[in-house]
């Protein structure tokens, strides 16, 4: 087939690998405030980008990155661009704060952006975002665009004029084929995103970056939002410590095993 024109939707999230102390829950504002950790691309979105770059390497074409959010880090986006994408499109607006947008509103904004940009053969997203883990945006976007969607890809290949996707199942995988244009949500089994070189990151500054606006797209995220966050409560941590008392280590071990069975841990 001819070259693939691909779009990868990427979300900026606080580094999910930060320690628990790095996520402060503001109950009143109903926000999670990251402390001492950087924004990063949501890891499954990185997998989606890697899948796109591999397809580009094999079949040619181009990879456009699209990110919607508020306070988007140019450094994070340029690093993603430097991994092997060709173009960056940003919609950076306080109304698109990740704490405000639900999946419906995010998909609606992305759909408007995709229609505006136009001409994509294949759209890739992560299977779910690291902050919400909702996993709805990709499929919602496909629905709004009226194109087929294949979730949880562990492998994406071009077959004839369409694509062949291996989709992860709990105990195996299913194979789907779809015509293009199509959307695929990508799982981590695809592989980690390659690390760009420092030179590539610096050169990425010269690649095209476009900025979209909500007004220009004619979309209002607030009117698209369907969910309301009513309360946000940090997890309570409860620790109970029981000491196993016995006269000998053997007896202690046996008693410990009994206790573990009683608690249904073993």
């Amino acid at each position, binding site marked *: 087939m001819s070259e693939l024109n691909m779009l990868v939707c990427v979300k*900026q999230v606080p*580094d999910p*690998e*930060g*320690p628990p*102390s*790095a996520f402060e829950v503001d109950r009143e504002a109903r926000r999670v405030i*990251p*402390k*001492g*950790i*950087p*924004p990063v691309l949501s890891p499954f979105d990185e997998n989606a980008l890697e899948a796109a770059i591999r397809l580009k390497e094999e079949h040619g074409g181009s990879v456009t990155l699209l990110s919607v959010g508020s*306070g*988007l*880090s*140019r*450094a*994070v986006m*340029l*690093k993603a661009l430097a991994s092997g994408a060709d173009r960056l499109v940003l919609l950076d607006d306080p109304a698109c704060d990740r704490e405000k947008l639900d999946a419906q509103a995010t998909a609606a904004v992305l759909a408007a952006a995709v229609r505006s940009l136009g001409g994509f053969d294949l759209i890739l997203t992560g299977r779910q975002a690291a902050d919400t883990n909702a996993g709805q945006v990709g499929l919602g976007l496909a629905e709004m665009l009226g194109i087929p969607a294949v979730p949880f890809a562990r492998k994406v290949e071009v077959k004839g004029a369409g694509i062949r996707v291996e989709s992860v199942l709990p105990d195996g995988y299913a194979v789907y084929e779809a015509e293009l244009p199509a959307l695929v949500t990508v799982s981590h089994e695809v592989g980690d995103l390659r*690390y760009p070189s*420092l030179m590539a*990151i*610096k050169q990425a500054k010269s690649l095209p970056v476009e900025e979209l606006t909500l007004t220009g797209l004619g979309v209002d995220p607030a009117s698209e939002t369907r969910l309301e966050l009513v309360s946000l409560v940090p997890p309570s941590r409860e620790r109970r410590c029981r000491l196993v008392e016995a006269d000998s280590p053997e007896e202690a071990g046996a008693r410990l095993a009994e206790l573990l069975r009683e608690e249904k841990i073993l």
Partner: protein
Amino acid sequence: MALQDYLRDMEGCSRCSSCKWVPFNQVKSWRFAKNCPSVTRHNLHAFSGSGKMIMGLSMVSGRSELNDTVTEIIYRCQLCGACDTACKVYRDDIDLMDVLLALRAHCVEQGQLIPEHMLTIDALKREDNVFGEPKARRGDWAEGLDVKDAVGEKPQVLFHAGCRYSYDPDLRETVRGAVRLLRSAGVDLGIAGADEACCGGRAFELGYQGESENFADDMVSRVKATGASVLVTACSDCYAAFNYLYPRMGKELGVELYHITQYLEKLAGEGRLRLRQRVPKLVTWHDPCHLGRKSEPFTGEWKGDKLLRPVTMKRTGKKGVYDAPRNVLKSIPGIELVEMERIKGYAWCCGAGGGVLEAFPEFAAWTAAERIEEALATGAEALVTSCPWCLRIFRDAVEETGALLEVYDLTELALVSAGEGVLAGGAAR
């Protein structure tokens, strides 16, 4: 703590510019009177400790925003802490170093990231070291050495090499010599090899404080798993992380901690290390920032008005490790120590710290060359230090500038004096 938590510190800056100078009662000459590489190099107030506090105050007050220029100024700084030491000669209510750290954390939280530092953090996450070298090869430097495997053989003393000593091929003989020296004194020593990881101190200084905490948690587990009762490190950066940063983060290693200069002093005092061979050299000592002012023990976080803070909780830069290396040097027969003008708490930085070596190498090299000039001005034939980062950048600077100055790690001279090595080609073998 967040940047806004230091509002009083930033508001309190009287812009006296003391942060740019060696404390005035310690100035010996105009030539070496400045203490801050950043403002000395860039010659603009914004680059000084005071300037950075003004920028921080402006951002916290909503009068300006973080942008690429401000970010670069914040990171064109080795975080050497000389400004903090100088400021505290006059002020009790400003923790300048903490403001600089909070500024970096603010940059990271806002996504104002330096590309070179992003790669360093990627490397740390991927391979547990700042260079991105394979973690499986971390122990290669010790191949063939008579040393226990700390994971399984339960040595009394765990030797922590650190990232630079583990992977820098040019410093391999130096760190191997340090281990040979300790073994010659009969120390029951082990290394973790591939199971050693970065201390996380560099991540903290780059502003990635959350990532740093992950490394601290990991390190605590790794050290406890060895069963060692003593930890000795040859890296000043790691020592400062273990001695100051970890307690600040509420992490306990649960071992007796020594920098190798302290441990050598202890061994010599106990008669286990005998430094008998003459090493006839006129040398000067460079205080690594992380061994000196930045390694001061953590004494708790003071809440409230800092003017009411007990002086024991004020970090003055005076409680760093200054005497141990000098005592070891002086105990080596033939060594004559001559001091530079800027020493101890107000020593000039080597240039490598704070992510400057990675992001602004020309600034790092300039800073090192400045120190080399100061060392040469003493008439010394050798510059001695005890930090692999200082050692690396000084050796590079000497090669670059063609300065007639040898650069040694203290353990190299001690190794020779202990009869376990010879000096050849500017290093101990």
